[in-house]
């Protein structure tokens, strides 16, 4: 039994969150029930999802809500949201370069928009606008390219001039003699930031209400297969039978790899090789000040992006580290480069202080696009290779993976992202003009 399995009604459904509820609890000093239950691990499930981040939890949530598949366990080796979901800079947008990318992320944005009501938890989606600055003719050309592809799919996205940039973000230095002059920007009003932990907890709570089990501190040590060409029946031609964890073996006909950072290692357990290298993406946050930065600002060529939370902290991110590794300690070089670039864009913030830095692991693929769906091992599915944009894609990935599992067919929205494309050489076009765009 868990520590505090309190406050549930006979239907097992806890009360909804609401201001009224808060008020009542405030008066009575009553307690809220557990956000998700703490139940014993079973011996078998219909679906096992490896990775308790936004992707894994969303997949579980939509399996339960859209397809009625509830005998599902989400396993995480640490705590829910301990990976990329809790380490990203919580930026969401849909202004990608390729039609397939745009359609995909636009659906994600749509789900984020309705999330607070769907999940009955305030995920604090702040649709504040997203600016990608251009410091050169060629960058500006790429911005136009993105804007035009976006417009053709009714995405609110356009290129604006330096003066318009200044009107939206007064703290930016638009003087033409700057080292990296701002020559314009791709403006995407629907982009914004969101409380990433709330998204994790919301999906976990929603999935829990429908019977899905969340198991933290449950590490997958091996994936059990049979019939495959590789050792222990792993690899192409085989099928998955379950997983081995630090808490024992669990059987399941379907195992989904929703991890980031360890994606290629987990897939290796099933004998499936992935076109992935793992590199840390660093982030940092300053001390809070009164709010002055109204939009999300990205500079691709300077490899920096920044937004200001409602608490007044500036949140920064950059490009992935220049070499593969699994180390999530921040580096000093990152904060130095970051500060230098930020001060070139906003000289006024030199007196703000960096409070904390951290890193998350990103699984980079050759074409800056994910790997989703079926693998050569029957019953083993992947939702991996999310590079630096996994959080943005969480909801739609969950929805599509759930459909993929439930219908045993690849949904249209993710047709562009199969593992097989790396064997046929038909890479996704995001590689076409791969600038960092967060």
């Amino acid at each position, binding site marked *: 039994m868990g*520590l*505090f399995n*309190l406050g549930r009604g006979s239907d097992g459904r806890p009360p909804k*969150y609401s*201001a009224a*509820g*808060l008020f009542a609890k405030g008066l009575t000093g009553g307690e*809220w029930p*557990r*956000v998700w239950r703490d139940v014993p691990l079973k011996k078998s499930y219909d679906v096992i999802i490896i990775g308790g981040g936004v992707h894994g939890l969303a997949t579980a949530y939509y399996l339960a809500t859209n397809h009625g598949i509830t005998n599902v366990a989400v396993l995480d080796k*640490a*705590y829910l949201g301990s990976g990329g979901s809790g380490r990203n800079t919580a930026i969401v947008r849909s202004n990608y370069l390729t*039609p397939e990318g745009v359609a995909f992320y636009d659906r994600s944005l749509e789900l984020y928009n309705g999330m607070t*009501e769907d999940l009955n938890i*305030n995920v*604090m*989606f*702040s*649709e504040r606008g997203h600016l990608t600055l251009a410091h050169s*003719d*060629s960058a500006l*050309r790429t911005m136009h*390219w993105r804007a*035009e*592809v976006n*417009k*053709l799919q009714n995405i609110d996205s356009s290129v604006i001039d330096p003066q318009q940039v200044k009107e939206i973000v*007064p*703290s930016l230095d638009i003087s033409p003699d700057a*080292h990296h002059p701002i020559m314009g920007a791709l403006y995407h009003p629907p982009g914004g930031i969101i*409380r990433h*932990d709330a998204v994790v*907890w919301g999906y976990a709570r929603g999935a829990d209400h429908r019977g899905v089990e969340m198991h*933290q501190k449950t590490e997958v040590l091996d994936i059990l297969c049979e019939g495959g060409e590789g050792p222990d029946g792993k690899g192409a031609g085989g099928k998955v039978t379950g997983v081995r964890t630090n808490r024992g073996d669990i059987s399941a006909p379907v195992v989904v790899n929703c991890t980031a950072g360890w994606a290629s290692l987990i897939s290796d357990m099933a004998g499936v090789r992935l076109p992935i290298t793992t590199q840390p993406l660093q982030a940092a946050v300053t*001390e*809070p000040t*009164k*709010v*002055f930065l109204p939009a999300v600002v990205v500079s691709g060529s300077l490899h920096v992006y920044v937004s200001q939370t409602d608490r007044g902290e500036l949140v920064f991110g950059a490009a992935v580290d220049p070499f593969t590794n699994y*180390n999530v*300690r*921040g*580096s*000093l070089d990152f904060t*130095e480069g*970051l*500060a230098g670039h*930020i*001060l070139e864009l*906003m000289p*006024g913030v*030199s*007196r*703000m202080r*960096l409070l*904390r*830095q951290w890193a998350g692991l990103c699984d980079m693929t050759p074409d800056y696009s994910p790997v989703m769906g079926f693998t050569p091992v029957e019953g083993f599915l992947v939702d991996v290779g999310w590079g630096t944009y996994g959080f943005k894609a969480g909801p739609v990935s969950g929805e599509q993976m759930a459909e993929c599992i439930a219908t045993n067919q690849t949904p249209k929205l993710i047709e562009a992202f199969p593992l097989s494309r790396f064997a046929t*050489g038909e890479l996704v076009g995001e590689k*076409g003009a*791969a600038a960092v765009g967060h």
Partner: protein
Amino acid sequence: MAQSNRLPQQPHEVIDRGSPLNFTWNGKNLTGFTGDTIASALVANGVEVVSRSMKYHRPRGYITADFWDPNGFVQVGPEPNVRSGHRELSSGIAVDPQNVWPSLDYDVKAANGLVGRFLSAGFYYKTFMKPASLWPAFEKVLSTFAPGGTVDLEAPKDEFDKRYAHPDVLVAGGGPAGMAAAIAAAESGASVMLVEHEHRLGGHLCWGSDADVALAGELAAAAEAAGVEVLVNSTVTGRYEDNWIAVTQRSHPLATERLIKARAKVLVVAAGLIERPYVFAGNDKPGVMLSGAVRRLVNLYAAKPGERAVVFSANADGDATVADLERAGIEVASVVDARSGANLIEAHGGSKRVSSIEFADGSKVDADLLVVAAGWTAPTSLLNMAGDRPVYDESSARFFPQHAIDNVLTTGGLAGDGTRDELVEHGRATGRLAAERAAAVRHRLQAFTVQAAPVDGDEPAWADDARTPLGRDPHPALFQSTSTGTKSKAFVDFSEDISNKDLVAAAKEGYDSVELLKRYTTATMGPAQGKLETVNTVAVLADARGETIEEVGTTVWRPPYAPISLGGLAGRIFNPHRVSAIHEWHTSNGMVPIQAGAWERPDHYGDPAAEVRNTRENVGIIDVSPLGKLDLRGPDVPKLLNLLYTNKWSKLPIEGVRYGIMCADDGVVMDDGVTGHLGENHYLMTTTSSGAARVWEWIENWLQTERPDWQVHVTPVTTAYTSINVAGPKSRELMAQLTDIDLDPEAFPYMTLRQGTIAGIDDCIMWRIGFTGELSYELHVPAGHGLHVWETLMETGADLGIKPFGLEAQRIMRLEKGHFIVGQDTDGLTLAPTTGLEPLIKLDKDDFVGKAELAWAMNDRLDELPRLVAIQTTDPTIVPMEATQIVRAGTTEILGRITSSRMSPTLNRSVCLGQVASAMAAPGTELELVLIPDGRRVTATVMEHHAHFDPEGERLRA
């Protein structure tokens, strides 16, 4: 009355009463002394409330009165979030409270205090949800609660600086142990950097007994004498891989902040201990202070923290505080000894100040000052960053390091407890050990480093740690009092306004691991980053879960140890900047510059169209020095060219020039350019300007890793030569006046080169190529003479109507000729054959980079790939902006895009290059374009040749 709370002279005060300083607080004029911190000056002036808390806007006074004080954040002029407990007072500064509205004394948002019971931790996740449309409004309101000061975006940037350092031993912390370690290490021959967070060496000795203060002085002097580099008011903010140490120096004469990046052979962590607040009802009321705060204020600054004190003591520091108060003439109403089981229940009082203290035995004592000495937190950040996970020790009620780390040693309070002498002795032993180990590392580094002085003797053995460990004094485990039934909150995190009840409630909701609890409640996320809050948070969670602190475990301390300003991190910003030998001339002749990578070069000189016309009619010259140039020497150069380019090179004769296209092994176009055969085993390769560095590394990679047996020397000569393109029908006439090289078309045909003297300069290279489509000579002259040749060309060409032209004119002319630019007309997926250069791809070569993919593509799926084609709009006056999308007529289905477009001054119509689906690539195909920005749709046609102008190339062959 000025400085109403300034005590009479204290024996070891650090203020200079002879040098008063004026400053303003909240608009009022006040006076302090040199040596005061802002905090001590405010306290000396009777200021009790310095800030309002974040959520409930409760009035707050000093609790630690040092760098970490959660209540001591103030605005100083343009600078937000100044730590008033640390920042020294300076003359004329304007100090203001933060997070108050409309005023410190009357704060409207304090109303939150009344509804506080409804603002449980994480409340905002549970409300403001309906209607969703209103969230933006809620958000605006919430954001006005943002704590912290105001950024003055207009204020001029301060001076910041950086330096590297390579000390043998770097000591973090200048208390007794740290100083002793630094001295011993230096005396053992190590180069030592000693970094002290406070304004003076000594640590807790500074506000201690006569003997303490005396020892601090002796050690400081000894450190000086031993040649230790001492940095005060500086903080070791991070320990990164391979002992890469970040030190923030706030005491540099020329820089507000300076970041020192030190590669220390051994790091000694002597950070001391941080006094831990005690969690009990009303523990945030002004007048509740930790013993360290009181001792600093009284002993260092002679500032009176209150009139009538109650001291809650669990250790010697608490006891010493009693003595200090009595000496200073402050009434001590009661001393409560936690060691004998006594306990606090609640600090009562009005909103502005504590008035009475209630104890577990039910007794109550009136007081306006409650001194709390409840124990210590070990600031193990630097050890965490080095990979250690400190462990909790029940009997001492604090964490201690767990693992020994080879090059990170610990001493002082972090390592254990002891008398002054024991601490100093442990410090000395640590310093000696550090020096020994540093010597071994230094020996190895020197032996491994190619340019280092030869190192003699064997490497010193790695010294074992034979230090006598410090003891661990028992200490009562005081984390939270049993404040049951009390009305006022017991705060765990002051800066985040988180009470123990908030934490318990969150844990019961399932946020019951330290990390989840932190994220859900934001406890420990504030400016002190958990230095005051973490252990108490863990303790409250442990209680709630019925587990021990050890079982719950602590969280990872992340860098930096203390916040660093963005300016300090940026330091002096370097932006390498490249110019050609002719740069000065361009600037003084009306250049409109363009930044191309690191290069600054002329985009044009006023009228690019005129520059085009003049070049097509007379003669023009352009400075193309940024063009990448690689000198290739050796017998195997032809093999190399055959490998890197898709076409064949074996038969290129001496004085021949050939164009080539380079792919990566995935068949994607990487770079292009012409290469000339200068002489036996000697070639000059040109690359795109932006690709120069990449291609050089690329070639070295193939030579060093894949073809190590080939004999080729590659030398980057991009700026060894000034490159000038002389183009136009009159270029031959012009060159004839500058060189005796035979320019007759028969003698010097298209796509050949000559070497000789130009304008009196020897060793010039001259080749006939035509990126612009005109008869043109590309000159490569020794850079030191580039300006001379350019100026001679301009003089000599005057009567031929010579004019310089810039990048823009060149871009127009190359587009008129249909030459593509790698990276603009091609992208990260463009396979070589789709650029219209299929004839240049020789699949019958044994091997070349990209061959496999290109062979498969050309055999199987060429018709699935987009093609690069020349495009002309039906309406010649329309210039579709680059990136204009090409769609299936009447739909939004994207079939391609315009990659280059210009109005052609030569043809008086717009000309384009674009990528289109192969199905649309046939000459004559009509395309539909969606114009930028208005989305208007117009038609265009795919042309037969890439060249819009002179497709047969008669002009350039002239």
